[in-house]
């Protein structure tokens, strides 16, 4: 069992390492991730949302729907705990 796990883990790790070869270097300012979508968040956040903290503006506005989902996840967890551990009473 452990040997299989080790093989699987190494396989996954090896694949991931193999993938990194073609990646942009760490912290490369010209990587596609820094050039394609994100510049607008950085440049327009104040103009478009009047929020200087880009993370907040992206979190709550540009990708506000994700955050709604996130809150729902939290809510789900809360209800799940109630269902699992508390349901008997009440």
């Amino acid at each position, binding site marked *: 069992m452990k040997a299989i796990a080790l093989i699987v883990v190494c396989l996954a790790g090896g694949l991931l390492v193999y993938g*990194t*070869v073609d990646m942009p*270097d760490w912290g490369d300012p010209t990587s596609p991730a820094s050039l394609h979508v994100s510049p607008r968040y950085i440049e327009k956040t104040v103009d478009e949302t009047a929020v200087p903290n880009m993370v907040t503006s992206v979190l709550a506005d540009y990708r506000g729907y994700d955050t709604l989902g996130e809150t729902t*996840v939290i809510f789900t967890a809360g209800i799940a705990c109630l269902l699992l551990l508390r349901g008997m009473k009440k």
Partner: protein
Amino acid sequence: MTIELIIGKYNYWIYISLMMIGFYAMIAKKNLVKKLIGMNIFQTSIILFFISIGSKKGATIPIVEEGVKTIQANQYINPLPHVLMLTAIVVMVSTFGVALALLLLIYRKYHTLEEDEILNLRR
């Protein structure tokens, strides 16, 4: 060439080794709590990976100082991965909470947290 590769990528490799540790703990450890820790390590390493996608050399934290007029995209770190990872952390902690609740249930039922013992008990 190889040196450049190593300098440029070593961070990723460390994340990946972290990921492997977590992954290994998830599938090979017999203790359920250890599995859970592995799960968390796995998730945090992914978060680490995402955060490092956003990092930019020579850029600062993604909060605009007051009074700054012109904003260049390469002045600030890419905020998008941060946002995504905030969500991922939340997911992580939610999963963690539910998992602990499950573990509690399991422990109440079997009075052990070892996978093999539980499997024996169930048989």
